[in-house]
């Protein structure tokens, strides 16, 4: 009996000949990741064991991206724990402010995570790297501590759901809309403990940016990981970035799936997740009149250059509606530079947007764009829980960058079609 791509990658990181859903395994890790919120606890747990060295200084990655540049004294103390540990352990992958970017945009861009890897991160959106054909999943700080010590983690091999996208995407419809649509269909626990494997003719034509956005949000359906079989689009993305060997895996034709979901994408319009769950999804044509106060374009979900190009295309020659704040956050320094060279930053500034250095900041209600009571934001981010971006009486509407940019111009939740 065949194995899925998820099962094959996990299996290849053990001594076993095959693995099946439900099996508990110990797998060797290629990368273990922490950030300025989760790593301090992991580092404390690591030190409590009396250990002197991490298992491999090239495989432990620390990215201080959530509250950096430090928002206050407490966050400065947390970042310092990472910096001191990175220096003490001579970690190859530590990113100081000035080089740092939002972790899940940064690591694929820098070639730190690669196809065929097993990656854990003490951050729930670690699942993003499934876009490259890796097994990647989020865990907590203690799991990271154990990983830094042993280079391994325990996993229950997940069942896989096969999601088949077919048909041609409408204008303004992107990876964000496909994943929002899927979460709306199956619910926030619709893939709990399971793998979501994306395939079909639409997927074959999707850019890496769209794949990263889709894999990023599988956690919003409760999934353990999301995964795309690598292809020539993957090759084009990784071959110029990789500094170590990588391997492509594919599901066997007779691999077992617990569920198959077929979605005709040609019927999908831009999607919006209304407060307060990512599954509370409607098409933009059914949005109704929702006045807004803020728009955020950025994050590990949609802060890549492709996202900024879409937003700039809509904002060019226009300006943000009165009394609305537009905050644009290129997810990495490389994206920031690219946006500058392409003239996108000038378009944003002309439109009266604020452009920020890379940070997770507003997405999690950390800083750099907190909402007051009663305020509403359209955001290209990934969660819209109660209080996610500020006051518990505020609201977040999740969308793609085109809808976010059009909404900023019109001062209400709106699709780009309304501007033409």
């Amino acid at each position, binding site marked *: 009996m065949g194995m899925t791509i998820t099962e094959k990658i996990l299996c290849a990181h053990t001594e076993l000949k095959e693995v099946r859903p439900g099996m508990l395994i110990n797998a060797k890790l290629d990368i273990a990741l922490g950030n300025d*919120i989760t790593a301090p606890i992991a580092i404390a747990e690591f030190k409590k064991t009396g250990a002197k060295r991490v298992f491999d200084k090239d495989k432990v990655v620390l990215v201080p991206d959530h509250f950096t540049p430090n928002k206050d004294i407490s966050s400065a103390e947390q970042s310092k724990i990472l910096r001191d540990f990175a220096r003490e352990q001579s970690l190859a992958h530590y990113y100081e402010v000035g080089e740092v970017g939002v972790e899940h945009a940064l690591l694929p861009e820098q070639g730190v995570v690669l196809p065929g890897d097993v990656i854990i991160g003490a951050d729930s959106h670690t699942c993003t790297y499934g876009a490259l054909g890796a097994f990647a999943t989020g865990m*907590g700080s203690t799991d990271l501590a154990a990983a830094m010590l042993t280079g391994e983690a325990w996993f229950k091999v997940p069942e896989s759901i096969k999601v088949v996208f077919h048909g041609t995407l409408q204008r303004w419809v992107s990876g964000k809309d496909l994943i929002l649509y899927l979460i709306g269909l199956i619910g926030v626990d619709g893939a*709990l403990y399971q793998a979501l494997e994306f395939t079909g003719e639409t997927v074959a034509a999707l850019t890496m940016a769209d794949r990263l956005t889709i894999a990023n949000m599988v956690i919003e359906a*409760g999934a353990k990981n999301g995964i795309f079989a690598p292809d020539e689009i993957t090759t084009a993305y990784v071959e110029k970035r990789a500094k170590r060997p990588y391997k492509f895996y594919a599901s066997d034709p007779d691999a077992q799936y617990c569920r198959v979901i077929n979605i005709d994408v040609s019927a999908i319009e831009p999607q919006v997740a209304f407060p307060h769950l990512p599954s509370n999804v409607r098409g933009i044509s059914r949005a109704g009149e929702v006045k807004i106060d803020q728009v955020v374009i950025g994050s590990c979900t949609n802060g890549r250059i492709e996202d900024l190009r879409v937003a700039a295309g809509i904002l060019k020659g226009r300006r943000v509606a009165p009394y609305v704040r537009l905050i644009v956050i290129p997810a990495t320094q490389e994206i920031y530079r690219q946006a500058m060279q392409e003239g996108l930053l000038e378009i944003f500034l002309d439109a009266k947007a604020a452009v920020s250095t890379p940070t997770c900041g507003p997405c999690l209600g950390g800083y750099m764009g907190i909402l007051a009571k009663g305020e509403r934001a359209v955001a290209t981010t990934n969660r819209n829980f109660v209080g996610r971006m500020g006051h518990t009486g505020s609201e977040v509407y999740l969308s793609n960058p085109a809808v976010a940019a059009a909404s900023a111009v019109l001062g209400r939740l709106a699709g780009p079609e309304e501007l033409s």
Partner: protein
Amino acid sequence: MKLRGRIWKFGDNIDTDAIIPARYLNTSDPQELAAHCMEDADPEFVKKISKGDIIVGGSNFGCGSSREHAPIAIKAAGISCVIARSFARIFYRNAFNMGLPIFESDLLWGMVAAGQEIEVDGDRGSIVIIGGGEPLAVTPIPPFMQALINDGGLMQHIARKK
């Protein structure tokens, strides 16, 4: 392990932002986190609870962010255990790793009201509603997770294996 306490009831999809909002994640001090436990689901929660009280949640408890600060805040606030219809994956894993007892029961949520007392017998895997009828069985804890609990958490489990 027997745990007896008053229950506080929450609905489905209680996310980790509700359990411990990100605005407090600039620290990992358990007592500071405990002071804001469940704040965005019930702002008065920490003022109302007593040591040993029990949280009863609906399905997908602990969804969202991977922050281990969520089970840390619950434990440090004095909550003895969490019983939910189901747990989100990372929260489930974190709770076992850091030593917050959690149990799954599909039935309990529909049978109890806030303020009622229950007793959980972790060894027998049963819940008694005080003044209620027959004990309810909780979903059995997988043997591996039981080994983690017996060893006192993941780090101790690894130390023992070495």
